[in-house]
């Protein structure tokens, strides 16, 4: 089944392959429709969304509430299955997968950064970062080393043993970024990552995202704040379940970031 699915993905690639795409896109959405039953009436959350995200892109998906961006985020995050349409993530067709397989895909391919941080209480920063690697079956010694590296990368090398309730919002969100990158996923998926943060922490966090982007990470970020979307190299805007604009932009340089002092004047993201 997976083989056939891969075949489908390859076909999609070939159709779009007039340009010399060396690598397959990380995300290929084609005609994604998601409908919900609400009081006996079918409500369309997305009405045939299609777009691709190439490796190394930093895409912001914008839209007001009700625009379908959360639905899209759930589908991209393999937390939900589209009613119709094709979705392939890093070459794997997501249709026809059961709960077990979806868990595995989420574990291997996606690093989540949620609005509410979503760290597990009663577990230290280190344990939180280790958790997805534990689910992936990585040996304790290796996952501890990798977790330490990830936490040092987000600037929390001094707070490995702190519990989540002992950390500020900005620090918690950095722990969740460390957790997201620890498995070395194909995609970092951030859902309103600055939604619960003050502007200073928000800017620091976006500096971190910019850094990750500069290191070649593929990031998709859902947001409704246009100033946050400015950090991305590409902005996809949704309204009423459809894409109304899809534009490249030169990403904003984080003003308060300490770590992103080096220029992130963006060249790689504008390849399309």
């Amino acid at each position: 089944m997976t083989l056939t699915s891969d075949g489908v993905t390859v076909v999609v690639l070939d159709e779009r392959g007039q340009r010399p795409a060396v690598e397959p896109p990380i995300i290929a959405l084609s005609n994604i429709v998601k409908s919900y039953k609400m009081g006996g009436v079918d409500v369309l959350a997305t009405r045939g969304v299609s777009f691709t995200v190439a490796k190394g892109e930093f895409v912001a998906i914008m839209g007001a509430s009700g625009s379908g961006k959360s639905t899209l985020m759930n589908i991209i995050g393999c937390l939900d299955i589209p009613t119709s349409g094709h979705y392939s993530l890093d070459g794997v067709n997501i249709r026809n997968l059961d709960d077990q397989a979806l868990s595995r895909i989420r574990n291997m391919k996606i690093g989540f950064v949620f609005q509410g941080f979503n760290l597990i209480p009663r577990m230290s920063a280190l344990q939180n970062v280790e958790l997805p690697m534990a689910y992936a079956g990585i040996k304790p010694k290796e996952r501890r080393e990798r977790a330490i590296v990830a936490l040092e990368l987000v600037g929390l090398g001094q707070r490995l043993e702190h519990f989540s309730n002992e950390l500020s919002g900005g620090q918690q969100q950095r722990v969740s970024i460390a957790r997201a990158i620890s498995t070395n996923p194909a995609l970092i998926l951030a859902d309103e990552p600055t939604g619960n943060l003050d502007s200073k922490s928000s800017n620091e966090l976006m500096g971190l995202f910019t850094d990750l982007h500069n290191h070649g990470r593929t990031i998709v970020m859902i947001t409704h704040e246009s100033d946050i979307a400015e950090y991305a190299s590409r902005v996809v805007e949704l309204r009423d379940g459809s894409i109304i604009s899809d534009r490249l932009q030169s990403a904003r340089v984080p003003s308060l970031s300490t770590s992103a002092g080096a220029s992130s004047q963006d060249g790689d993201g504008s390849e399309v």
Partner: protein
Amino acid sequence: MSNMFGNLIMAVRGIGSNWLRTLLTMLGVLIGVASVIVLLAIGTGTSRSIENSIQSLGSNTLTVFSSGGSGTSSGTQIRNTNLNSASVSLISNPNNAPDVQSVSPVITTSVTATKQSSTYSTSVIGSTPSYLVASNYTVSAGRSISAADVTSHAQVIDIGASVASGLFVTGTDPLGQQIELGSARFTIVGLLASKGSTGLTNADAVVIAPYTAVQDQLTGESQSFSELLIQGKSASTLSLAQSEVESVLAAQNDTTVAALPFNVLNQASLISTATSSSKTFTALLGWVAAVSLLVGAIGVMNIMLVTVTERTREIGIRKAIGARKSVVLTQFLIESTVISFMGGVLGAIAGVVVSRFTIAGVKPVLASYSIPLALGVALSVGIVAGFYPAYRAASLRPIDALRYE
């Protein structure tokens, strides 16, 4: 397997996050397990004490006693149906009753024994030396009453440990001393080793004397005995001995075995009756305890359901970052199992401790099977009661679970 260990650590941490609640949940299992152990111990203790008191009647014995008056059950008038010396000599004859070891005539009466200012109420058994053997009395000092004593109507006695301690100050040697039984004076020639209290009767509150002397001094001359204590040759031939004795007595009294106005108490059948009734009693107690364990199980299930609801968001996070259904299932199952197993272990300890005390006059005896049984049940309670909540947790869709506030 490090994963399993990690799960265990995680479960313990989860449990530790709400100590009071966990403790109360454990208490349910603890009380259940403890009551299983204690109640089974009481059941076992009761049946042990019943067995002991039957055992104290002697070993392999038949007791023949008059069922009162002349038997008219079959409509036939029977005269002179007594247990007398003739009965004793007939049964003693090996040709008549080959499976009988010994026959002891017994006359019982109650007296107040007096030594100077000390008095003690005791039963007096008038019999022959074979009585001591048949009813498992051993002489710890001095000598047993003898056949010569019986023949010579000697006023000599063997006294039980309770009588000795009731009449004599510790340190004084009762041997050779004289005491009054009622108004008659008897000389102590032997002390009986303690048989211990059997819970129902005190086998040590006894004075044994030659029956001839008892008839002379206490009960008055009579043709009949209160009962006959007959010792069989072995446990397996006790029923055989019983029918021989019954035939002899029937022949002596010119009647049939069925019409015989005597009751024959067969110790072996007494034990088996008592054992089966005490088994029923123990099983009943076991069921009562099982009900309380069931209540504990419901408590565990209830609390696990609450825990799952409370931690819906956490489950959502775990599933979002890649926890498979089986991992979540295992995590919550381990949690419920750890709770109830800890409750089980504490309950077993509590049960063992409580079983050391005498409860309602019964000395509980720990049933060897009760601890593994109770722990096994506690473990299965954890798994069974935890399964549904754990399954519910594992089946949550991450998208719903993450949205849960």
